[in-house]
């Protein structure tokens, strides 16, 4: 019988939550790496027992951990992230130029086919790749070396590369997103990149439709339809049907189109999930009600999913990497909150249960579907 493993990163350690295919009884293990900020953990699609984890603190910087047995044991691997060549500068908050400085890994994306190949999205924004199981890392510097690189400016959370999508039909094609530079795509395995932000409008910018400078919060796709992308931008939920070449707003009837996570159902490529947040000033759910919104039409028409979620006095947030879907049937949806709850829905969002209530603030949730 299939089972599900959730890899949960928090501000004070990592947790592994497991259940059988019914997904109504969960075993909770952790904290692993207690006291460390675990920004992201993710398993290899090619070998689900190969896991990678980003571990960091302000005291000791970045560590990368690898497990070869599904999280039972872990081994620290390489943590040297050196920008290629002369790092140069990017734009700082005050508009001056600021040197590129490595701060941490926000997102780890294992290759779809090779367990030893993994990509790391880092702050200050750059993409690194390891082909030896995380022991050594090399920057794919064509991204940061894009002529617009000097214009990239950090969002409030830093200049972070937080989204990496590998096209399963053509692994040479990848889409990444940076706050607050925008979205970029490579069609040659990471050698060269171009901004794909046409159609994004950000009223915070002097030129609302400029090529870069958009605060993209997260992007998701269904692997069966990799050129259809869904984006949660700082404001606005967006959709692209051409691999990011152009974007259309699909916020529709959402109560707020500010938010962080966005995910697509594993089997229904037009079923999309977001968690609306009041505004960029408040970062809390509208009306104190924690509601996931689901569109079954690829955007524009959204329904509130509330069954099992707190509908009063709830002021938690859900961060960009803290939502995930499993591949079971019916498809499961999961998310973690800054209040330390991890919610699970084994029925595509119709009903929710808190697997755990009181973890440290949740930074990331990744669901693995195991045979």
């Amino acid at each position: 019988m299939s089972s599900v493993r959730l890899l949960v990163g928090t501000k004070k350690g990592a947790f592994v939550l497991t259940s059988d295919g019914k997904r109504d009884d969960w075993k909770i293990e952790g904290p692993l790496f207690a006291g460390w900020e675990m920004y992201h953990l993710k398993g290899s699609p090619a070998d689900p027992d190969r896991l990678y984890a980003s571990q960091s603190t302000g005291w000791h910087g970045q560590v990368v951990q690898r497990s070869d047995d599904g999280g039972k044991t872990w081994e620290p691997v390489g943590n040297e992230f050196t920008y290629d060549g002369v790092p140069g500068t990017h734009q700082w908050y005050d508009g001056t130029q600021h040197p590129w400085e490595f701060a941490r890994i926000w997102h780890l994306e294992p290759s779809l086919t090779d367990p030893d190949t993994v990509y790391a999205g880092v702050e200050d924004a750059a993409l690194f790749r390891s082909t030896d199981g995380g022991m050594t890392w090399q920057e794919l510097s064509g991204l940061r070396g894009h002529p617009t690189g000097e214009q990239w400016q950090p969002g409030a959370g830093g200049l972070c590369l937080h989204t990496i999508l590998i096209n399963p039909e053509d692994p040479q094609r990848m889409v990444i997103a940076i706050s607050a530079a925008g979205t970029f795509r490579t069609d040659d395995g990471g050698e060269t990149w171009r901004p794909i932000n046409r159609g994004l409008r950000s009223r915070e910018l002097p030129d609302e439709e400029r090529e870069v400078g958009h605060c993209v919060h997260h992007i998701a796709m269904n692997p069966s339809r990799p050129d259809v992308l869904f984006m949660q931008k700082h404001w606005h939920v967006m959709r692209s049907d051409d691999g990011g070449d152009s974007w259309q707003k699909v916020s529709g009837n959402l109560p707020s189109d500010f938010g962080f996570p966005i995910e697509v159902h594993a089997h229904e490529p037009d079923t999309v999930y977001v968690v609306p947040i009041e505004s960029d000033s408040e970062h809390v759910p509208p009306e104190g009600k924690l509601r996931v919104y689901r569109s079954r039409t690829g955007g524009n028409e959204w329904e509130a999913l509330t069954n099992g979620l707190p509908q009063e006095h709830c002021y938690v947030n859900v961060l960009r990497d803290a939502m995930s879907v499993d591949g079971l049937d019916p498809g499961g949806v999961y998310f973690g909150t800054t209040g330390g709850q991890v919610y699970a829905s084994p029925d595509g969002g119709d009903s929710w249960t808190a697997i755990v209530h009181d973890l440290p603030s949740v930074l990331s949730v990744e669901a693995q579907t195991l045979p």
Partner: protein
Amino acid sequence: MIRVVLPHHLRALAGVDGEVSLDVRERATQRTVLDALEARYPVLRGTIRDHGTAKRRDFIRFFACGTDITLDPADDPLPEAVASGTEPFRVVAAMAGG
């Protein structure tokens, strides 16, 4: 033999319980002790000093014989009591964060 006391997180990372004893062949300085520490425990590279530049991380301090020697030149000799192993060289995680 130089004795080194590590903060909690680095002991966990290095997989050690108590103090670390290092055989430092050269004159004992901050740099030679940390070089020997990182050679013995490569997992600590980048967690006390930055890769490449060997710049001390901002929230790390060094103490010897009850004195904060963090800002002393990295190539200054450590006190004889540390060099002889009577007193430990302490790597301290500053009281900071939440």
